[in-house]
């Protein structure tokens, strides 16, 4: 889909909105700000006007408020909100995760987790409905778990014809997560693992149903790069290849079985696996960054910078969903940088450390 005139209006609007994003000069001013109050003041000069009223302490609300506003705006003017807002779905998958874990922690471990903690307002789905779905899943996990099986599979097949049914996709993913949780002896980690995998599957299904080549490529790259990070972390923690099989994300272009086959090898042998993939360069740079700085976050930052670049390529395409997608991802990225600066400033970290933590991702 090289050119899609349906997106003319939203692309034009996005091009104008891109101007108002925080540029490097302003980021620098923020990093060098005297304290949180000045930071909030600088921020309130931008689109984040809430910063003036809420102040630096409630920076999460400021950032989330702005992101939610942008998502809602694009959704209202996009001819295909499912496609342009596909990555917003990750917040919905996250909410399902938080809701399920809170309910299961209360049911099985006796932890009194506060209602609604860990839930974000950034998702597109109604939280009350998600909560009700999670309630049902947790209740079903007790007795009716078996009966859900066969009939649900049919529902799955029918549902994939219609990927815009995000609610259905999240609920289904939630059910699989609860099943995995029960199957692994009430292991909460499996809720995260299953929902993470399902979220990538959802991205893929949306891309497939729209024949959206750019998105498809982006999802593959995201899955691959995230898998590289996952391998690095799991190998460091000391997890087995069997466990890694449950963690690695689907829909990447790198063959998972081949990757798992070399998973147990020593560092050099393992990383040379990527020489034969298209991730030769990022892996190489990341390894060098890690060697030079001795910190894992350096590795992570390099990989994430590559991801941001892959997403930004959407902005190069003149007309279609791609620039919109790229804009939304850039806004999420911007929010991420702001969060880092706020955390740094509120805790009185020196400007160099804040810059180091930031510039790694956005050199």
């Amino acid at each position: 889909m090289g050119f899609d005139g349906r997106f003319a209006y939203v692309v034009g609007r996005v091009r104008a909105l891109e101007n108002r994003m925080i540029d490097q000069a302003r980021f620098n001013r923020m990093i060098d700000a005297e304290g949180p109050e000045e930071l909030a003041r600088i921020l309130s000069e931008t689109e984040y006007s809430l910063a003036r009223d809420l102040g630096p302490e409630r920076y999460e609300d400021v950032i989330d408020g702005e992101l939610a506003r942008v998502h809602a705006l694009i959704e209202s003017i996009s001819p295909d909100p499912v496609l342009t807002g596909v990555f917003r779905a990750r917040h919905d998958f996250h909410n399902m995760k938080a809701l399920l874990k809170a309910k299961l922690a209360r049911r099985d471990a006796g932890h009194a987790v506060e209602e609604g903690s860990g839930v974000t307002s950034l998702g597109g789905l109604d939280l009350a409905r998600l909560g009700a779905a999670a309630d049902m899943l947790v209740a079903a996990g007790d007795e009716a778990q078996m009966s859900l099986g066969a009939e649900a599979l049919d529902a799955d097949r029918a549902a994939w014809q219609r990927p815009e049914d995000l609610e259905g996709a999240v609920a289904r993913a939630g059910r699989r997560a609860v099943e995995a949780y029960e199957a692994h002896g009430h292991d909460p980690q499996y809720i995260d693992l299953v929902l993470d995998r399902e979220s990538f599957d959802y991205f893929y299904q949306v891309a497939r149903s729209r024949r959206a080549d750019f998105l498809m490529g982006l999802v593959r790259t995201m899955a691959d790069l995230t898998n590289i990070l996952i391998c690095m972390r799991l190998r460091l923690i000391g997890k087995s290849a069997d466990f890694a099989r449950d963690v690695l994300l689907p829909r990447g272009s790198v063959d998972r079985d081949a990757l798992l086959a070399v998973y147990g090898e020593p560092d050099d042998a393992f990383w040379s696996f990527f020489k034969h993939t298209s991730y030769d360069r990022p892996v190489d740079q990341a390894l060098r960054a890690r060697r030079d700085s001795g910190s894992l976050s350096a590795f992570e930052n390099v990989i994430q910078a590559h991801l941001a670049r892959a997403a930004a390529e959407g902005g190069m395409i003149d007309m279609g969903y791609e620039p919109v997608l790229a804009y939304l991802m850039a806004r999420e990225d911007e929010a991420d940088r702001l969060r880092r600066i706020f955390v740094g400033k509120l805790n009185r970290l020196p400007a160099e450390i804040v810059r180091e933590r930031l510039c790694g991702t956005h050199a």
Partner: protein
Amino acid sequence: MEGFLGTILGFLGVALAIITPGIGSSIGVGLVGRSGAGVVTEDPDKFGSILLLEAIPGTQGIYGFLTGLMIMIKIGALGGGLRALTVGQGAQLMMSAMPIALVGWISAIAQGRVAAAGVGIVAKRPEEMGKAVILAAMVETYAVLALLASLLLVFSVNV
């Protein structure tokens, strides 16, 4: 009967020359217009530049209309003295309209896309508007060439 068919072919030429570039131009202008509306929503000051860009894909429609007008004059459709054309003359006139009919149609859409992308330039860097206009205007070359060819052909037909 003979003269009747020739005249119909001549009219067909007029219709083609006006219809297809017109369609192309309206698609092109519409595209730029929608894209421009997005920018103007956020930034009303840019209306002037956007309007200029929007007008560029509109020229093909004018070229088509011009060619059509020339054929009309040729066959005397203006002023009431409609001439009877032979089939050969009618077909010649119709074929003369083809360059602008096809090139005008396609190039207007292509130009619309370039201009819509140019809207992005104007949104980001208003000072670079000239470049956006030049990029879009490059497509114009081929519409102008087609117009020239069509007009020369029309004039060359002996009626």
